[in-house]
């Protein structure tokens, strides 16, 4: 069933990205929201729906002066914003709100005014994972990968290619944090973090934010921006414990969210012109390409090494440079969405000529959650 036409009419990141010690986390939300509101000529009274993660929608609505008739505080990690877009589209169709603002802001690097993250020792993670010495995502998100490598005969050099190709894209993007070209040798010479993962196979840690404004396609005609249509959406969750994933070589949440979005959009993989797969670590594009059905099982590393996702390739992937090279504040999903919208508006720094359909696929937690959005710049 195809979604009725809901569009993104506002999309903006914080004015600065990277290291922003002069703004607290809530102001990063506001900076991005004000930029998005300004580009489509809205004021707080024009917004009647608010969604955000990490901070509560109460805090953001109050801070921005918004009186919502609809709120969504889904907070399942970095793909929360894909899920917000999905819920917002449904809410607009159902008439629960007309103009919805989705915000993200995170002082991931400077850590100004952000709530502490900790794992309660009585939680299942606290009882059955934390005692064995993990320290955040670099030591947990990476745990399944040796099993994936063994099952499919994938080498660490092949995984390093993911980082090399994404750096090529970042080189085309003036806002990317890391822009200098790198080689597989550079990746494998970088500091070991959690074998087999080295520093350059792990995402950046930066400050920033982003905001999206959604409304119906009908109302979008009155906005000054080029509307970006939502063709299909999907979401799911699996487990808060990476050790309890059903399959270490595939994400159940990916396998639910991705195909749900494709089915709703009524498109095939061959119709996709541009793809974003949330890359907190270098293995995520491999899992994403396979779980979304772009390649068969075990083929993703070869697909990337053969430059299919690189500049000039048939399936441009993570064209902003991704979490590995562009920016990663901790909940990166908003920046993947921003790049999809830029590509559909035709204004991306590394613009894909003639791109009409963009798939934006997110992960939350350590394979805990997923959200997929399929965008188009043509009305469905």
């Amino acid at each position, binding site marked *: 069933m195809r979604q009725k036409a809901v569009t993104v009419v506002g999309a903006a990141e914080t004015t600065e990205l990277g290291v922003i010690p002069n703004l607290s986390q809530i102001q990063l939300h506001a900076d991005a929201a004000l930029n998005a509101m300004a580009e489509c000529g809205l004021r707080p009274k024009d917004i009647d729906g608010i969604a955000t993660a990490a901070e509560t929608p109460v805090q953001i609505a109050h801070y921005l002066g918004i009186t919502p008739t609809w709120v969504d505080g889904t907070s399942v990690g970095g793909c929360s914003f894909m899920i917000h877009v999905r819920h917002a589209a449904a809410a607009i169709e159902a008439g629960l709100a007309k103009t919805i603002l989705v915000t993200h802001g995170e002082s991931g690097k400077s850590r100004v005014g952000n709530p502490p993250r900790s794992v*309660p020792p009585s939680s*299942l993670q606290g009882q059955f*994972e934390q*005692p*064995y010495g993990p*320290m955040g995502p670099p030591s947990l998100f990476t745990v399944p990968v*040796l099993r994936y490598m063994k099952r499919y005969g994938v080498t660490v050099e092949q995984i390093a290619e993911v980082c090399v190709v994404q750096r090529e894209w970042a080189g085309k993007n003036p806002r990317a944090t890391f822009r200098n070209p790198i080689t597989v040798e550079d990746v494998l010479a970088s500091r070991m973090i959690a074998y087999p993962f080295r520093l350059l196979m792990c995402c950046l840690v930066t400050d920033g934010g982003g905001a999206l404004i959604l409304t119906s396609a009908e109302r979008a005609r009155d906005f000054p921006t080029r509307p970006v249509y939502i063709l299909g959406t999907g979401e799911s969750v699996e487990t808060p414990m990476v050790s309890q994933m059903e399959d*270490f070589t595939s994400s159940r949440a990916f396998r639910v969210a991705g195909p749900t979005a494709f089915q709703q959009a009524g498109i095939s993989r061959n119709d996709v012109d541009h793809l974003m797969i949330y890359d907190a670590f270098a293995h995520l594009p491999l899992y994403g390409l396979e779980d979304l059905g772009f390649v068969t099982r075990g083929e993703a590393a070869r697909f990337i090494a053969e430059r299919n996702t690189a500049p000039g390739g048939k399936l441009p992937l993570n064209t902003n440079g991704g979490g590995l090279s562009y920016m990663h504040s901790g909940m990166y999903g908003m920046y993947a969405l921003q790049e999809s919208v830029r590509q559909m508006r035709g204004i991306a720094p590394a613009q894909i000529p003639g791109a009409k359909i963009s798939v934006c696929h997110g992960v939350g937690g350590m394979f805990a959650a997923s959200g997929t959005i399929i965008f188009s710049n043509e009305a469905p």
Partner: protein
Amino acid sequence: MAEPGRALPQPTPETQHFWDGTKAGELRLQRCDACGKVYFPPRPFCAACASRQVSVFQASGRAILWSYVIHHRKVAGFNPPYAIAVVQLAEGPRMMTNIVDCPQTPEALQLDMPVEVVFEKQTDDITLPLFRPAFVPLAKG
């Protein structure tokens, strides 16, 4: 690896049997009396069929090494590099653990190698289930 400072679990009413088990030198799993599913982590019902009729039983303690990373950053209670591992128990469920009595290297830590549970006391209340290579003969400790 029994150094002070490691994060320790705080049992809840639903998990107390597991931690009582490790303290007594038993690895305890649960089995659904209705559908037969063996599961972990602990909960007083079956997530496969929603039955509340479940039993606790002592697992064999045998497992294979399923996946891991070798952590190179300092964490309280650990001397890097050390492996953060997941083992697949003979009964089916997987659990996170550390591999002891074994070099913490890719060469020594081969996926699918057999391992067996050992119990390492942390405090009077908490004993952790760790695993060691099963083919290494060791004096009973």
